[in-house]
């Protein structure tokens, strides 16, 4: 991507972060930390990588996305709103009674390809989608994003074995390695390290990336495209809460909403970042 495209992605990612904040603040609950850590990756996928069209959301040939770490739905919803699947106004009623946007992704929401949120399950459904593509001779790709805590679930490794066995090179999994889970540092709670070695041992093409650098993200997905005969995992080093100073790398923002004062501060920081980008 050139400098202009990169700047455009940075601007969009900043808007996505503002949408995440808006959603979680108005919901008075939700998961801002892990949503902010994947904001850049999701922005890249929906605005640069994936073949999707909000005007034709059910196109059988479209690329698919499964948010296996479904609790970070605010990030997905905010990206989908930016992309035009529904109004950004919807973000304000996230988690409210009767609202379109459920606490975790639901297949009935425009642009959401699979319900998810019970950890470990999204990667299996993504495998099924990739297998369907292979058996139907379709060229679409399937992307899924997992948490680094999520990979403690045994089902993830069942799915990993499956993806390699069936040579699902149309599947790309991203492990969002922000290093934190609800009870603390992943290395303290139940270490999944070494993550890259584990996936390599399961037969995957393993790529590493910086989750907050679009050049690095682009390079990683290009490496996935270049690999044939194996699924690719991108282990991305990320910062939980990225973009909001007091949330960064702080586990207490895994599943908590900001109060009014914190909301104003976070909004101010993100708006300042946006203004600087647009200047």
């Amino acid at each position, binding site marked *: 991507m050139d400098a202009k495209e990169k700047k455009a992605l940075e601007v969009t990612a900043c808007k996505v972060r503002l949408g995440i904040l808006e959603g979680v603040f108005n919901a008075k609950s939700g998961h801002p930390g892990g949503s902010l850590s994947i904001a850049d990756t999701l922005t890249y996928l929906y605005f640069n990588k994936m073949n999707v069209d909000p005007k034709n959301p059910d196109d059988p040939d479209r690329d698919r996305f499964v948010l296996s770490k479904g609790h970070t739905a605010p990030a997905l919803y905010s990206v989908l709103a930016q992309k035009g699947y529904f109004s950004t106004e919807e973000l304000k009623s996230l988690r409210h009674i009767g609202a379109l946007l459920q606490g975790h992704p639901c297949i009935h929401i425009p642009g959401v390809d699979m319900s998810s949120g019970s950890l470990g399950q*999204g990667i299996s459904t993504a495998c099924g989608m990739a297998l369907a593509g292979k058996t139907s001779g379709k060229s679409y790709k399937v992307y899924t994003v997992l948490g680094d805590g999520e990979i403690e679930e045994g089902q993830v490794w069942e799915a990993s074995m499956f993806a390699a066995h069936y040579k699902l090179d149309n599947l790309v999994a991203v492990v969002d390695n922000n290093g934190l889970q609800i009870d603390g540092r992943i290395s303290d709670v139940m270490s999944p390290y070494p993550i890259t070695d584990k996936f390599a041992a399961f037969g995957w093409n393993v790529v590493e990336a910086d989750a907050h650098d679009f050049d690095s993200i682009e390079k990683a997905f290009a490496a996935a495209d270049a690999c044939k005969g194996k699924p690719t995992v991108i282990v991305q080093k990320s910062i939980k809460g990225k973009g909001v100073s007091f949330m960064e790398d702080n586990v207490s923002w895994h599943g908590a909403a900001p109060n009014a004062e914190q909301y104003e501060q976070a909004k101010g920081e993100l708006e300042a970042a946006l203004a600087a980008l647009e200047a």
Partner: protein
Amino acid sequence: MADVKKIATRESYGNALAELGDKYENLVVLDADLAAATKTGIFKKKFPDRFFDCGIAEANMMGVAAGLAACGKVPFASTFAMFAAGRAFEIVRNSIGYPHLNVKIGATHAGISVGEDGATHQCNEDIALMRTIPGMTVINPADDVEAKAAVEAAINYVGPVYMRFGRLAVPVFNDPATYKFELGKGVKLRDGKDISIIATGLMVAEAVTAAEKLAAEGISAEVINIHTIKPIDKEIIAATAQKTGKVLTVEEHSIIGGLGSAVCDVLCECCPTKVVKIGVNDEFGHSGPAAKLLEQFGLCADNIYVTAKEIVK
């Protein structure tokens, strides 16, 4: 029924898949290293490119089935009932039930008629578990003819379906020439006025035998086959209860949460009727030949006959 042909409904399942594979191009089959036992191996032989072994990983298999269905396939995910409904319950609920995906679950080796393998593999809880999932259709066919028809009905219905099949060979009592499977419709197999015997799965043939024995003693038993436990046929259940005033349910499943409970759910709302349940009581099974176990647990024509006689008395 001593002379009739006997076929295990798991066999019917495998045969039906293989027979329907040509007609339904989107049909694909998944198994978890049990293709020889679930009989999906019959399909695998005919359609190797549409059969996917998932290995001993039932949770992932259910998720894969969900993904296949989301992309237009009609996947049949097959394993023993214990692992389909038991081990993979939460995946079935969240990845298949909640998004209401078009996944068909072929669960074989249900109930204590698994036999020698014993309690760890005798699933007496699957109907109870599956019927609590919103939008899940639950089918428990009674014989070969019904099982094969149920498989095709499941393909033609859009949405998740749980199908329960047995390991034990059971009498084929339906006539393939005239049998018509209607999803959600009970089948009256015998008219009667003294008592209603409502049965499902392999207990249906036993119920018919019991009714014949009762008839010889002047007791007129109505026999209803409930192959679709969810959505259940409320009309046929209410009508027979109102007619006889006495209901006996029979199932090879726990008396907690299965057919008996489903029948009580219907009757307590529309026409309170005394219901006696024959099923596996609140206990685990154990090893032994299937026929002996069924007898020991009272899941046989003799016990249905004795119990019905007691109720009518």
